[in-house]
């Protein structure tokens, strides 16, 4: 059985200019879109709390949201996961702890009303309030005071006597997850849901994770570039690199347009796509190199066209089969895994395209430039006589 009859002779390279133009416009649009709208960062990167609740009776997303709002959670986002018969919802809140800049102010006022409070310092990011009291305080009283001011307290810590006199205390605010579950169960004798999953990422950890992810992406691109330059000719390098950048941008575009959550798994997708993209590009490069040795003297565009045509059935087959292996994930995957499979599918399509229309044309362009330079250098030699 064959999908493609043996010798195709499609002029891929002749259409490289319109293809490059369209790709450049798309890529630019995506980059501008990212700058303006930004990604829908998941808790991994943005910090925050996600709670997955499975209700034991059918419930609609707007009912879940209404219940949350009734209990005072106004900025909660509700998203159904899986099929609607599963009654599972993701509830996400931006904050990590119940301490906000506003509630810190009210907590400060409430504490100062106790008298003798100095050195008040609220660390909103970590949900910590530090303060010093002239006299020893009863921890329960401190707890009541802070809780009464609207910030749930997990713990009051006695940090010991301060050297300049007085006693140091620390109040640790409760996490948002508690607030979500208690809000959802408010007014019920028995919670009608089960907490399936809690993800809670502090903002500092989130930044660390994001920086590490981006660093991983850049390093791997660089390492692959070095390998390509080493194994092939250097003029193949930029083409491969640009194809990778193109694919990463296009898949980012998928995340941008679909508003799917951009998280650690997304970084894994982008990295796989770079690997896949380079894989695809290299197969074609390999063929170009082979054909170059066979047809010495033929212009490069022609050789590239032959190479792309020769590898066409393999390119389509491989992409098709890899896409086929994702079908299972697309059917049975939920949440993160479905997102993974979908983004991979987009990546496979753009990766196949970029090997043909991005990587190869750039090689031609670099080759032509090198040829022009050589010609210019030749004429320079003539002149000084």
């Amino acid at each position, binding site marked *: *059985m064959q999908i493609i009859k*043996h010798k195709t002779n499609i002029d891929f390279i002749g259409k490289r200019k319109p293809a490059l133009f369209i790709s450049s416009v798309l890529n630019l649009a995506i980059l501008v879109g990212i700058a303006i709208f930004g990604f829908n960062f998941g808790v991994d990167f943005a910090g925050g709390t996600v709670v*997955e609740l499975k209700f034991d009776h059918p419930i609609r997303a707007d009912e879940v949201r209404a219940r949350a709002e009734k209990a005072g959670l106004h900025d909660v986002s509700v998203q159904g996961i899986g099929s609607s018969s599963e009654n599972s919802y993701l509830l996400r809140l931006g904050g990590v702890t119940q301490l906000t800049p506003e509630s810190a102010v009210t907590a400060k006022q409430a504490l100062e009303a106790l008298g003798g409070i100095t050195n008040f310092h609220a660390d909103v990011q*970590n949900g910590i309030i530090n303060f010093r009291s002239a006299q020893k305080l009863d921890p329960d009283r401190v707890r009541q005071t802070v809780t009464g001011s609207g910030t749930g307290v*997990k*713990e009051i810590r006695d*940090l*010991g006597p301060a*050297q300049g006199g007085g006693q140091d205390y*620390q109040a*640790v605010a409760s*996490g948002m*997850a508690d607030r979500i579950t208690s809000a959802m169960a408010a007014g019920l004798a028995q919670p009608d849901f*089960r*907490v*399936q*999953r*809690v*993800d809670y*990422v*502090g903002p500092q*950890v989130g930044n660390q994770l994001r920086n*590490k*992810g981006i*660093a*991983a992406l850049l390093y791997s691109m660089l*390492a*692959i570039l070095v*390998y390509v330059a080493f194994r092939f000719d250097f003029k193949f390098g930029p083409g491969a690199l640009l194809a990778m950048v193109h694919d990463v941008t296009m898949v980012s575009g998928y995340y941008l347009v679909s508003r799917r959550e951009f998280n*650690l*798994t997304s*970084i*894994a997708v982008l*990295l*796989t796509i*770079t*690997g*896949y993209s*380079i*894989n695809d590009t*290299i*197969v074609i490069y*390999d063929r170009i190199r*082979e054909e170059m040795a066979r047809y010495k003297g033929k212009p490069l565009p022609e050789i590239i066209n032959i190479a792309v045509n020769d*590898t066409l059935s*393999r390119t389509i087959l*491989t992409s098709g*089969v*890899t896409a*086929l*292996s*994702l*079908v*299972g*994930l697309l*059917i*049975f*995957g939920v949440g*993160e*895994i479905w997102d993974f499979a979908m983004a991979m599918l987009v990546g496979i399509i753009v990766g196949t395209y970029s090997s043909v229309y991005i990587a190869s044309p750039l090689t031609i362009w670099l080759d032509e430039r090198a040829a022009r330079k050589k010609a210019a250098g030749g004429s320079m030699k003539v002149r000084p006589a």
Partner: protein
Amino acid sequence: MGRSNWGRWVIILAVTLGSVWYLIPTYYSFFVLPKSQRNDEKALQARLPRWAPSANHRLNLGLDLQGGIHMVMRVDTQTALQKRVERRGIQILNFLKDQKIEGVTYTTNPEKLELTLKAPDSATLDKVEKEMKGFDDFTRVGRTQDSVTFQLKDTQVSRFREDAVDQAMLVIRRRIDKWGVAEVDVRKMGTDSIQISLPGQQDPEQAKELIGTTAQLEFRMVDEKSNHFSQLMAKHPPPADSGIRLVRPNAYEQLEGKDRDQLLAFARQDLPPNREVLLQCVTAQAQKGTCDSYLAYLVDKAVPLTGESLAGADASRSQNSNDFEVNLSFDTQGGVEFGKLTGDNVGRYMAIVLDDNVNSAPRINERIPSGRARITMGRSLGKTDEQMYQEAKNLELVLRAGALPAPVTTGEIRQVGASLGDELIRRGSLAATVGLALVLTFMAIYYRKSGVIANVALVLNGLLILAGLALFNATLTLPGIAGFVLTLGIAVDANVLINERVREELAAGKSSRAAVDQGYDRAFWTIFDAHVTTLIAGLILLSTGTGPVRGFATTLIIGIVASLFTSIVVTRAITTYLVHGRGAKVSV
């Protein structure tokens, strides 16, 4: 079959059998052991046949698949450092008073960790600056007319941060230990974070206990005269299989046992009034956070002194006796109390208790009036200097943990319910099976016989990946399953490349044999380059990634190596055997 092919077949057979062999512990942990014991390495080791690989070579399920709690704690070293600068301020002031330098006051800048000393005149300030040379944990950063400012040295800050994280880790380990949870993974992450994995744990309340205040340190007197333990042994002999026995490593009797709860319940029977039984965790491997056995102490119920009055602790090696020791210093009030406590109890043993665990029980040799005490670590037979130093360092950390609160906050909590985990396993394996089935069917239809050969390689590839994960004791996570599916795609690609090449060679009019040989030869470097580049991406992902990303990278890397082997070595051996040995026509 050609002679040169013998070696190849031996390798293929060895790799296949080796893979199956390495999957034995995994098979036992999933299908032989009850689910509740799935994470229990000891139970698994006990069940494994003797010829099987050791139990640590098994495939673990990630927290996302089996349920559990993953936490990252941040140690708030900044608060602790601020307190330290203040404490040093007081100490410096007292020292200056001792040197008859009067009228000096100090202020601190908590953000910059600076200490500013103010003096009434510049002559005094000169003297202050001269004396401050002795406090070498500070550097002078500036001077105005009436004040001079010092900053905590960077080396001090980073050492302190490191110590603070070590302390917090120790405390967390001990607390987990108290619950008796098996298979807990506690490790340092970056400079100021601690990562904790509690597989199978569902109780967030318990997890929260970890984040509580720093350890509670107490000093209690050991009752060395009582014969409570020997009476117990005589009156209620413990069951033979409990392993509880009477020991006398020191001048008093103690009980030793393997099971914490059992030992505690036994030792607490018929307790004399005003006495309490506390346990010490005996580890064979220090720092591993697991207890091999427990030692019971009979101590006074009264707590004469707590760690609140402890100002510092330092482990060092004695110049005179070459023994390891830990030096303690108390604040003024604590020093007086400690002097009285030691004076009243010369010759007795004092248990240092942290979070209700006895850490050690040194003997009081004399009254210690100065507020400075020294605990000399007894020499035990067969312990290396390194181990002795580690013990001293541990004790230092324990004491400091009680003395210096470095608050711990939660950086990250990921909790997955067990039912969700089960469902994810079901869906994940279903997805992988469907993906695999689709690919296998397609290959068999499209390439016929060659497709079937490729399918054999593909199935072997899956086996190799699982065995590879088991060999490295890796963890299978949800992203790991995705990586598994993806590597199947890559393995297919290698076979497509080869088969397309063979087709081309056939189309060029070559014989079956020549087409197979040249097809494989020509496809080799393409496959190699393509695999190496993906491998590079995987390796970088592994070295920089965290958590779920690492699981994905591990599967990807093992899968790439397996794919290289199956596509280049295995399918070629089979095809060559068929075409060369049996004279079959290649069918692609």
